[in-house]
Structure formats: C-alpha cells, structure tokens
C-alpha cells in the first residue's frame, strides 16, 4: 500500500515537471516550489542531525575540557552569524563569513595546486600513462596551450582605440577558440545522451511499475 502511494505521488510530481514541455505553466512552478521546499528542509534536518547536534551533545558531556573550550570560538561566531538577521548587528556576522572565506581560500589553493594543476602538468611527461603516440601527444600539448591563450585577455589599444591582442597570439587564439567549441560540442552531446537515457529510464520505470500493479 505504502509503495503504491509513493509511486502515485512520484508519478504525479513527475507529470507536473514534464508539463514544462508544453511551456512554462503553474503546474510546473508548483512542482518546482515543492522541490525547493522539501530539499531545503531536508538539507536543514540533515545538517542539524549530523553536524550540529552531535557537537552540542559532545560539549554537553564534558563542558570544561580543553576541547570544549576551544569550541567556544566557532560557537561565538555562529551566534554572531545568527545576529546577522538583526540589521543593527548585521556587521558582526561578517566575522563568521570571514573565517569561512579564509579557510575556503586555503583549501581551494591547495586543492587547485595538488588536485588539478600538478596532475594535469605531470600527465604531459608521463608517457606510460597515455595511449597517445608522440605526435598526438605534441598536438595535444600545442592545442592545450592554444586553449589557455584564449583565456588571456591582456592586450593593447590600436590607433582607433580598439582593444587588440598581440599579433603573435591571434592565430593561436583562433585555434584555441575552435578547440573550445569542439570540446563544448562533444560535452553537449554527452550530456544530451545521458539525459535521454535518464528520460527513457524514468518513463520505463513508471511503465514497468504500473504494469506490475495491473498484473
């Protein structure tokens, strides 16, 4: 019974979402608002249960230990964050935001260097780890540099006051732009295939479930 109820609710909500195919309409908007409400509340409940309450319980067990005293700093910052709702004290919440920004920047810096930049550079020199021939490897390296040059936006103004790239860069940038367009095209095709698979899976799932119910 419960499974059937869940199936019917899910099917109705799916139909509300698919109604967007005929254009933006109240049924679609209603479904999206329900999704936003449920997702936000679900995230809040999850965070409360798994991130906030365990720490509160841990501090309540032994409030005078060094670990508990150290936790006074984030608790004070959290209280300042709550004060942000009062316009007069809103600036106090900036302190908590500053901690998050500072820690986030440090993590992002380390992540970008060790997680992206170094592996991407080292893969060029690792001949054993690639199926490309040496010529294909060189072409890939040149095309990567051309793509990177596309993101360089420094230049000079010409006599007409227009911004132009240095002369030597222009050809490389055009190649880089073409590489980017081909890349985006391939990614677009991959995404389209994946979402088509999802679409058929959804339709197939409900069809199979309802056939089972009818049997």
């Amino acid at each position, binding site marked *: 019974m419960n499974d059937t109820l869940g199936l019917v609710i899910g099917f109705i909500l799916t139909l509300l979402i698919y109604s967007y195919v005929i254009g933006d309409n109240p049924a679609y908007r*209603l479904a999206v*608002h329900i999704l936003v*409400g*449920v997702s936000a509340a679900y995230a809040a409940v999850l965070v409360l249960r798994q991130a906030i309450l365990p720490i509160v319980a841990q501090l309540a067990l032994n409030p005078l230990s060094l670990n508990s005293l150290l936790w006074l700093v984030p608790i004070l910052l959290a209280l300042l*964050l709550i004060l942000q709702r009062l316009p007069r004290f809103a600036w106090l919440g900036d302190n908590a*935001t500053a901690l998050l920004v500072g820690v986030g920047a440090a993590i992002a810096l380390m992540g970008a260097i060790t997680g992206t930049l170094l592996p991407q550079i080292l893969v060029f020199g690792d001949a054993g780890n690639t199926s490309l021939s040496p010529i294909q490897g060189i072409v890939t390296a040149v095309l990567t540099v051309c793509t990177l040059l596309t993101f360089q936006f420094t230049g000079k103004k010409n006599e007409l006051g227009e911004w132009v790239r240095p002369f030597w860069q222009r050809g490389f940038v055009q190649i880089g732009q073409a590489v980017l367009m081909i890349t985006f095209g391939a990614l677009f095709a991959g995404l389209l295939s994946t979402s088509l698979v999802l679409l058929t899976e959804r339709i197939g799932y409900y069809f199979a479930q309802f056939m089972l119910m009818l049997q």
Partner: protein
Amino acid sequence: MLKRGIPLIIAISFGGLTLISLLFSITEISSLILEWASFLAAVALLLGAINLLSVHTHRLAAHRPVGGQNIYSAALVISMLVVFGLGMTDLIGLTNNSVGVVFNWIQAPLEAALASLLAFFLLLSGIRLLQRQRTIASILFLATAVLILLSNAFIASPILPQSISSLFQQLRDLIQSIIVTSGIRGILIGVALGAITLSIRLLLGLERPYNK
C-alpha cells in the same frame, strides 16, 4: 575600522593557519579548523533555510499577491514545515526515518524528472542557437555535437556495415582523445590558475567579499 578590520584579521589568520597546517601536514590544527568551518557552514545552511521560510511566509501574508505567487509560497512553506516536523518527530523517536520516506517519495522523483527534462532543455537551446547565432563557432559546436551523437548511434547500430561503423568510431576517438582532451585540459588548467590567483588575493586581504 573595527567593522572592516576584525573580519580581515580573522580571514587572513585562519586562512594562513589552514594553509600552513595543510602544507606541513599538521593534522591536529587542520582538522580542528576544518571542523570549525564545517560547523559554521552547517549553521549558515540552517539559517539560509530559515530565511527561505521567512521570505515565503512574508510573501504568503502579503495583502497583494503578485501573479498568484501566494499559492507557490504556500506550497513551499507547507512542504518545508512538513519535512521539518517529520525531522523533529524522527529526532525524538516518535517516527522512524520518515524524512527518508519523504526523500524517496517526493524529492528523488522530482530531481530525477528535472534531470531527465534536461534533454528537452538542451535540444531546445541547440535549436535556438542555430536560429539566432549562425557564426563559425556555433556551427562548429553543433557540428561536433551532431557528429558525436551520430557516431554513438552508428557504432551501436547492427544494421550498418562494420567498415562504416569503425570509420565513425575512429573519427569519434580522434576527436575525443586529442581535441576534447586538449580543450578540457586547457579549461581545467585555466580554472586552477584562476582559483590560485583568487585564493592568494583572498589570503592577502586584497579581495574582501565578507566586508559588505
């Protein structure tokens, strides 16, 4: 001075401390700071959810609804309160995993339906691109997309002769292994360089998004 100075000191000192502890693997400090940051992020998320609820409750109480927005706000507020309520009853032991049931019955089907609708959005945007912007770049973009989709279809098709499907497979593999790899690698390195620059600016206090 106080309003702008203290957040700057907090950002630089905690950012620097985290960076040093991560660089030199001082796990005691890095894990403590990361736990603090996770706790603060959790509180911020909770406050964000409460703010969403408060905005839509105010909209619901407005005397002049704009374009029937009251109904949507009511749906959002009710769905939020129901999930909050079930979360609380789960917490005190009145119900067992009722939030999980709501997730399986409502959130998962809605998310799956939205994700599958992406095919429709993508097709629509591709057609619009062809209608509005007939530049070399857009033609290259769409031609690649069509070529990859056709190649995938031809390779999987048992009707076509082996020679034609293998030709399409070679063409697709060549595009994927050289051009797409170069493009993605260029984008990733570009993003990493941008992230490094922004992070250094934040850690030096040259960017201050926390000072409103």
